[in-house]
């Protein structure tokens, strides 16, 4: 088995938000999903560079479509998580689950 790298927390959240958005996940929609579910402001710089990084790692891919009614606007990217990305998410979840095992009692205590 090839050695897996681990996803950072924010990278996981971005990939999960793309999956949540379905086929039509554009950058604006993803960012809003993130902000809504994580209940925090996402800085644009960190967001876009994370998208670029995930693309470089081949965990996501995008297609550009023209924006606006007549298609004359600036291009808009629509993102999709690649099978490698899904695999990586699964792997990260397993590692975390292992680490979480048996800690419910400790962590549930306020």
């Amino acid at each position: 088995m090839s050695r897996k790298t681990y996803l950072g927390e924010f990278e996981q959240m971005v990939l999960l938000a793309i999956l949540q958005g379905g086929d039509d996940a554009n950058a604006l929609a993803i960012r809003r999903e993130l902000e809504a579910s994580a209940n925090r402001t996402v800085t644009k710089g960190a967001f876009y560079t994370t998208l670029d990084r995930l693309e470089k790692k081949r965990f996501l891919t995008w297609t550009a479509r023209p924006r606006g009614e007549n298609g004359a606007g600036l291009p808009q990217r629509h993102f999709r998580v690649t099978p490698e990305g899904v695999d990586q998410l699964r792997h990260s979840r397993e590692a975390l689950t292992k680490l979480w095992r048996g800690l419910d009692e400790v962590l549930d205590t306020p």
Partner: protein
Amino acid sequence: MKHRLQPVTPPERADALLHRCLPDGVLGLSILGDLHQEFEELTTRSALRAPRLWYWRSAISLSGRYALERLKTRILEPGSGALMGGEVMGTLLADVRFGLRMLIKTPLLSGVAVLTIALGVALTTHTYSSVYGTMLRGVPVPGHDRLVHIGANRPEFGITEMQIPIHDFNDLRDQQTAFEDVGAFYQGTVNVAGDEGAPERFAGAFVSANALSHLGVPPLMGRTFLPGEDEAGARPVIVLGYHVWQNRFAGDPAIVGKTIRVNGEATDIVGVMPEGFRFPFLEDVWVTHRIDAAGLERGTGMDLDVFGKLREGGSLRAAQAELTAIATRLAQAYPESNEGIGLVVKPYEERFMPREIQAVLWLMLVATFGVLLIACANVANLLMARASIRSKEVAIRTALGAGRWRVVRQFLMESFVLAGVGGLVGVGIAWGGLVAYEAVIADIYKPYWIDPRMDAPVLAFSLLVTAFSAVAAGILPALRASSVQIGENLKDESRGSSSRRLGRFSNFLVVSEIAVSCALLVAAGFMIQSVVNLKNVDLGFETEGVLTGRVGLFANDYPDADVRDQFFAELRARLQAEPGVTSAAVGSILPGLGGSQFLFGVEGETYATDRDFPAATTAVVSPDYFETLGVELTQGRDFTELEARIGGDPVIIVNQSFADTYLPGRQALGEQIRIGRSDSERPWRTVIGVVPDMHVGGNTGGIGDDLERPERLFLPQGSIDFSFMSFAVRTNGPPADLAPAMRSLVMELDPNLPVYDLLPLRQAIDDATWAFGLFGGLFTIFGAAALFLAAVGLYGVMAFSVSQRRQEVGVRLALGAQAPAIVRMIVKGGATQLAIGIGVGIALGALMSSSMSIIMYGVEVGDPFVYGSIVLTLGATGLLACFIPARAATRMDPVQALRGE
């Protein structure tokens, strides 16, 4: 809602910025599109100002982020030739970022660590700038590293340093090949008059004609001296210092070529030296010496300081060999004047820097390194505490594949970040300290090249020290933290085992730190005591309430001894008559300000050869000299007015040391003493009084001057002819208030005669002991900082090690132990550490101090006071550091203490 008629566009400049920074192609355009879309949506909801502001903010944030990304990509780009370096750089950057995050995450710990390192770096930087500015930067002339001083010695008389007579200088100059050239000077005062201002005295150097040109500093205006201008009978010429030209002559651009009166002679101004040039010591003006070597018997006349630059590639050793050969030749050719006299060469700066001061400075630097080590140990302990909390993090990192080196590097980088910030703050503190220090020492009479300031070499040193601190403080915690056993830590849910392991190491650090602090404090304590002793050396006379001054008569205006004697008698009479003056005296020199040695013989003693005649510091003084200085004769009486004139009865006063050394077992009064050797034509003088010892002092920083040879002779005024005399007046009020009256009193006697060195005696002595002023205070500050760091560090590490035992305390309390018993137990444990540390420290300190004793003054290395106060301070701090957290632990609810773990 407000209806907009025209589409609103984002700010153009913000767009331009984005175009420049965002990636090219679809990627950049799509991001721009997202921004535009969001901007449009915002403009429908709020006034235009808010969306524009939002757009600008977003543009700046995005541009910054992408610019950084681009930089990183460029570094990591394959084919850029920096791939490997780039990768390393990338991870290093990540480590730095992580380090910064850790810094912010634990602000209290980081703050303490940063401040501790800052203090250590500030102290070492400050001390180094003193060492560098005093001994290493050197005299600011081209080729200063080759500039040397040549003096004479006379080993059989125990004379290690004396100046060179003109004849020897001339021969030396003709015969030497090791130097590019050699020049000579003697220091004196130069009286400038004959222009519009009142006559004024300046510190001057009487130099050989080649002296200034050999130094290689070109004049600002005009020229320096020409060959032949230093010969007897040459027309007098003067070169002005920059500030004399500015202040006395208002920066007159046509000053060169003008004629003024210098020391009573019409003298041409031939040049002005640039600002800051004060060679050889702290001079204002330069004139040629014009010594008539041909008219002088060999070995007589004004002695000279000789200096020169070694030839390129030449060494001190080779120069010394040549000088020894020259001295041997001179001794063979002129045995009467030169037998037993050697020539010695040394770096120029050492001529004006007593060896004791050099040793003290180097020692201070070593000691500040000790303080830095304490600071590093403190920070290492803090990092160790943090490492013990983070052992899980390390275990996870290791489990996820991070190698040990990777973990070590990350921990080290964190300490580099801490040290970096600390170093910056430290340099800031040192800079502030230097500014304050410069202001304090500005008025101290000291060599002109002594200039402690923050420049490139000093900054480079701070950088090195900072890097050293980072490694010293970080390496052990990093190595310890990285050796964590993964399985053990992931299984072990309590912090106990790992922290206890680190705790054991912490205990070792506590004991070592106590030992090092203690040793340093012992050494510092003795050094401070030594400096304080030197500063407060019992002068043997009263310095308060005395105003002093000096007056010099010129041969042109006062041609013979009678006229000069008359003048000084008249001066003293007028001083005594001045309202507010209770007593007045004149003397060839005042105590505490140096003196010259005269050979003498005691009647009844036999001296095998002329070389066996002893020497003592001798002064010529008027009646009331001792009364004015608040000194009471222990035997006999003072000179009478009649004795203190030319032709007066031959009498003499000696000091106690003289009586003890040269007249042992005799009644001093009535003994006969004669100045000179066997061929002396001077009269035998009867001892009529004995005075207590008075400090002689000198002008080379004052440490140890004449402390070993305190014997003194006092001759009555008129017995030896001096054209320069000092005066002292005692007053009931502040002595400085009398200064204007004194000045005008002398002006009335002779309007061409200036008074110089018109200072309260205390200040005159302070000026003469500049080295204490310069370094005494510094050492005290350094000692205080060492104590502070040691105390804080000790408190920190002891408190930490006690807090590590909270769980144990909880268990004990739960099992029914009494709180006071637990406190006792913990304090006892701490006291054991303290006792071991202090014991080792005292032994180390005693060892250090005894090796330093040669540079200490008036200090008993076994002095229980120093040891006692250090043991008390460290002991109290250490016990307090155990007691407070121990008590806090016992006051906690046992359940909470256990849960906390």
